[in-house]
């Protein structure tokens, strides 16, 4: 029998940088413990920090990154010299946005002479449920982590809707993905049809809470397809026609809007339930389910998926609200697992030539 050896816990200070999305986000972690997680829009506009007032226009990464970085260090109560690893998203995302984060991380790694950890944004979402709070509390403690794989990951955001087979962290196989729009995108596009502007998805979600099911019928996407792919363009068109019909009926909007939003949220939720169940049935070795991504900011969708997984007899792990939509904390977590697997760069020349990969996939 192997002697159980008590190891010293490996908990390096990691800085996680994400500029692949609309907001600049930087976080600090100690191992899997999140010490701070700052996004551009979270910065108090009344309190100037470091002389910089954040530019809240979308994707103003260049202008904001230094300020967000300083705030992340301050909130984590660490000094720059405490940083041990620099993790950064190098894809997927818009090339020009990714470059801002990568260049910032490169300069930092070279200046501090610390390892550089390139992270796949999607691996960030996938591992976001594995984050612990600053005190080390969370659902996935080390003992859980040792026994949860193989797992299924369901990732839903504005950009992505996919189901991934996770043999172990770092060993992924995509089982299904969206053929056209992502679920989060469908929310925002329907929000736009209802004149909620952009992003209109959160308003659709809120209105759905006041609505009643069964009053307005909408199709359930990909209900009959046999694979694990998603598609939301048909639902989008059905919504366009339904809204037109309701508007032409001259019934005041406030009499149908809540029920319409309720039905729409139901259609999205059903499509996800159907595919997830199919994926579980097709992969009998699965021990748990991980979810991540901004669509799960909707507690309604989260609870429904949670119920399905629990009824199936498995545990489901999901990130706390703050790290569901795009954020730097999940880059720390994915970075941490890459560090453990020795997936990082220390050679300055190698760091300098690392390039963004806009189409990076799991």
């Amino acid at each position: 029998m192997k002697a159980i050896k008590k190891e010293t816990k490996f908990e390096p200070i990691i800085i996680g940088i994400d500029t692949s999305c609309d907001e600049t986000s930087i976080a600090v972690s100690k191992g899997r413990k999140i010490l701070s997680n700052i996004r551009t829009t979270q910065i108090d506009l009344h309190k100037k920090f470091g002389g910089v007032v954040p530019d809240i226009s979308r994707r103003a990464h260049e202008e904001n990154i230094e300020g967000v970085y300083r705030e992340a260090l301050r909130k984590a109560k660490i000094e720059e010299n405490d940083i041990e690893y620099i993790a950064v998203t190098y894809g997927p995302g818009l090339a020009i946005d990714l470059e801002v984060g990568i260049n910032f991380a490169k300069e930092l790694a070279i200046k501090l002479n610390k390892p550089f950890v390139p992270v796949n944004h999607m691996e960030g979402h996938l591992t976001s449920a594995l984050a612990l709070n600053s005190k080390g509390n969370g659902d996935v403690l080390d003992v859980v982590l040792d026994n949860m794989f193989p797992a299924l990951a369901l990732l839903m955001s504005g950009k992505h809707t996919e189901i991934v087979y996770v043999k172990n962290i770092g060993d992924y196989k995509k089982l299904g993905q969206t053929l056209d729009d992502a679920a989060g995108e469908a929310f925002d596009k329907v929000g736009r049809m209802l004149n909620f502007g952009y992003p209109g998805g959160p308003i659709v979600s809120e209105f759905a809470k006041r609505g009643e099911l069964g009053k307005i019928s909408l199709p359930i996407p990909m209900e009959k397809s046999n694979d694990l792919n998603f598609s939301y363009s048909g639902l989008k068109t059905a919504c366009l026609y339904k809204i037109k019909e309701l508007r032409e009926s001259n019934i005041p909007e406030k009499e149908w809007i809540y029920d319409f939003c309720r039905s729409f949220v139901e259609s999205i939720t059903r499509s996800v339930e159907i595919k997830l169940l199919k994926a579980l049935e097709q992969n009998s070795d699965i021990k748990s389910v991980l979810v991540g991504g901004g669509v799960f900011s909707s507690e309604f969708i989260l609870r429904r998926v949670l119920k399905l997984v629990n009824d199936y007899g498995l545990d489901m792990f999901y990130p706390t609200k703050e790290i569901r939509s795009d954020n730097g904390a999940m880059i720390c977590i994915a970075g941490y697992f890459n560090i453990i697997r020795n997936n990082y760069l220390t050679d300055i020349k190698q760091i300098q030539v690392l390039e963004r990969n806009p189409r990076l996939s799991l």
Partner: protein
Amino acid sequence: MEIIKLTEQNLEESIAKAVEVLKAGGTVIYPTETCYGIGVDATNQVAVDKVYDYKGFRGQKPFSMAVTSKEMAAKYVEINDIADNLYKNYLPGPVTVVSNAKPNSGIATGVVSQWGSIGIRIPDHKIPVMLVEKLGKPMTSTSANVSYKPVPYSIESFLKNTPKKSQKYLDLILDYGELPKNVPSTVLDTTMNSLQVLREGKIEFENAIKKSKLYKQVETKDPEETISFAKEIADHFITNHDNGALVFALSGELGAGKTQFSKGVGEYLKVEDIVNSPTYTIINEYKYNDNGIDRVLVHMDTWRISDVKEFNRSGLQEYLEKSDIILIEWADKYFNDLEQMVKSIGGKIVKINFEYLSQTERKISVYESN
């Protein structure tokens, strides 16, 4: 603390009394369509601070305020197009609209959030409407319970759940009996929303079409036919293209088939990945092999791009310079800027318009420059 049981007979006089209390910086408990609320003059800082002390710890969560019309709200906040739509269609009603406060709005801190925004309601209940009208100023609109206690629907249960030491903050209670148990209002933040996704570039695009030659027009029955047609179009234009970038400028409503068409071009080039919507990434790259040379198909979407500055720094120019094949959805939004960019670098634009004929059928028109 005084409690008045409201009746049809004492209504006017009770409202007048409550308004005097509000004017003097006092607190009034009043009914709404959702639950009992606690009101003070929202422009009186001392009074608002009193409500904070009464409610107890609630983090940084600001109080909403009640007004009687959109016009009244507009005195205190900037109403953007999104908020305007919400006021028009859903208020009065159980919706709180969050907008940015105007500078020097005169509204107390705590109603104005740390972000400089204010949540505003127009109650669908005559009592708060009468109070605000008579007061001539906005009144705080937050549930009457102290933090962590149940939301009150009757004065009896309210008093039972409110500790004695908290009750000393209460000046006047307007008892309207048992209220229907409606869910609290839905809070909608419009401060980060923009309608810029609506930017109409249609006219620029239509003018460009008028100056172009119609190459082909088809009606497709379903997405599969749109994909086949895209392959045919890709074959014609890619085979006959000599040098410089080749841009397919796609225009059409949400769901009109722009992404399906792009899939077809991807299939023609034998791209291995699934070509899907680039709305969120803004630009997607797909690798393909062109007679032994690795090349990139560029798929762009301007739907989320909010201004020309953002369009110009999207990275499109670099792709044009590399002479790639580029698909652009919502190309009509910045069509003049696009045309100029392509002209200055050297390249060709093929304009493609998508129209709905029915839920599944589309009319697709392809135009090339004269």
